[in-house]
């Protein structure tokens, strides 16, 4: 217990002096680093623009405010594309993620020494690069369009789905697998009757969860030319058509809310 003495009276303290000094030093260093970082940002900023920002924001808001509802006619087709990118991308990602997950899980991997590290490497590299960067790259390789966005989304999702799936595989109840093995089942039969039924709820949950994330991400893929509603957003921004921008942002927000609602409903039904 840390107690200090003041005028001969004992006073309770939460920490003793050494710990307090250490914490104080940590705060000092932390504040110094933060101030240095802030200075970097400050140097790269034109502060005149910053002080002008409320006026500009009001100006843009004023231009954007009645959204151009008639533009909605042109948005249905990109919206359908966005939905397709998210859905087909998730389906493709799941198809590729399942074998990777089985190879990465400790209890199902064919070889812990060779295959597992490769599977883990696939998971890490797919997870650490954002889908927008994948799209940037794939637009250069495959040409602009929905296809590049679809591939970008699916590559990005493999790591996420495989990681969650292999964690689910590692947590299965081994006694069911043993029971199936005891009947003389082959390796594939053990998988189909012993493992798959156990991970099915997790699989469905992961699929819907990732679909929700993918729909959010596919709304902005168009900014780099990979199809979907982002393409319209980019076009409207470039022509400074603010009423269209506000309509598109509204549609994106609505799509995100709907997808979150759907995914919450489906996950609630599964679990």
């Amino acid at each position, binding site marked *: 217990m840390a107690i200090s003495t003041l005028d001969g009276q004992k006073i309770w303290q939460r920490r003793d002096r050494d710990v307090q000094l250490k914490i104080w030093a940590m705060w000092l260093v932390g504040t110094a680093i933060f101030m240095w970082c*802030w200075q970097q940002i400050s140097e790269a900023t034109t502060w005149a623009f910053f002080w002008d920002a409320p006026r*500009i924001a009001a100006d843009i808001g004023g231009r954007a405010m009645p959204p151009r509802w008639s533009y909605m006619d042109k948005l249905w087709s990109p919206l359908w594309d966005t939905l397709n990118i998210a859905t087909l991308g998730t389906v493709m990602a799941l198809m590729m993620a399942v074998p990777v997950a089985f190879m990465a899980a400790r209890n199902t991997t064919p070889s812990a020494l060779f295959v597992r590290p490769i599977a883990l490497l696939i998971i*890490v590299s797919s997870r650490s690069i954002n889908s927008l960067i994948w799209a*940037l790259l794939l637009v*250069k390789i495959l040409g602009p*369009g929905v296809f590049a966005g679809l591939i970008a989304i699916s590559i990005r999702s493999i790591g996420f789905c495989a990681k969650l799936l292999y964690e689910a595989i590692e947590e299965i109840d081994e006694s069911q697998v043993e029971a199936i093995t005891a009947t003389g089942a082959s390796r594939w039969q053990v998988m189909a009757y012993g493992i798959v039924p156990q991970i099915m709820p997790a699989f469905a949950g992961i699929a819907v969860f990732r679909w929700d994330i993918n729909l959010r991400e596919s709304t*902005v893929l168009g900014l780099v030319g990979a199809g979907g509603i982002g393409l319209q957003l980019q076009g409207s921004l470039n022509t400074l058509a603010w009423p269209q921008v506000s309509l598109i942002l509204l549609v994106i927000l609505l799509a995100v809310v709907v997808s979150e609602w759907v995914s919450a409903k489906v996950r609630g039904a599964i679990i």
Partner: protein
Amino acid sequence: MSAALDARLGQPWKKPPLISSPALRWTLLVGSVIYLILAMNSIDVNWSRVYRGLDRGWQFVVAFANPDFTSRAAEIKDGMIESAVMALTSTVVGIAISIPIGLGAARNISILPVYLVCRSIVAVSRALNEIVVAILLVAIFGFGPLAGFLTLSFATIGFLSKLLAEEIEDMDKVQAEAVRATGASWLQRYVFGIHPQVVPRLIGLSIYRLDINFRESAVLGIVGAGGIGATLNTAFDRYEFDTAAAILLVIIAVVMVLEYLSGIIRARVQ
């Protein structure tokens, strides 16, 4: 012997279906097949363009094997520093703002009006995509890291406040009540009763968010909000795949180091 068992005897076993209601099962199956056909048809792939692109794809794979760190070393260094600066400052500011909001959004310690306001702030921040926010903020504040910093802070607020509020709602009430029974003020109750319970999780989440913010700062540059993303975008536009590969490798390395460090720190504080 029961009648049900009699009926089952001699019948081959069949695996029970995942969805037990046949009507729902068939509707879902047919519906998804129709959707897949419609969706596949609406995507037109220009196969000749893809074929021509394969060559470029191969170039990129080759570039990954021998990335070029040197010819644009200065730009890469500046971009990485800017990204790191943006990630750090936005995490710090985000934490500072999300603690009061997280307290307000915890149902068990705040009053209803405050709860509703804080929850709606969280909902707005979580619903808006970072890139969309960045586009708007770049339009308002001009190009540069300030827009990126504001975007990431905004996104951090939604993330941290929500998780912090959930943590406070799950905490052990007894400790907070014990502190309250000593006649502590509201602030003392927070500092001695609630804060010690949630601080390990708060530190873990902050480190995790720093990691996310760094990854996101790599993308914000594409829309002009500063950071390494701008350098990456330029490299792709000039078809300098070796430089782009170098930048991607640096990002992956930093992300992996951060993930490793955050694992260690989280294991230590929890």
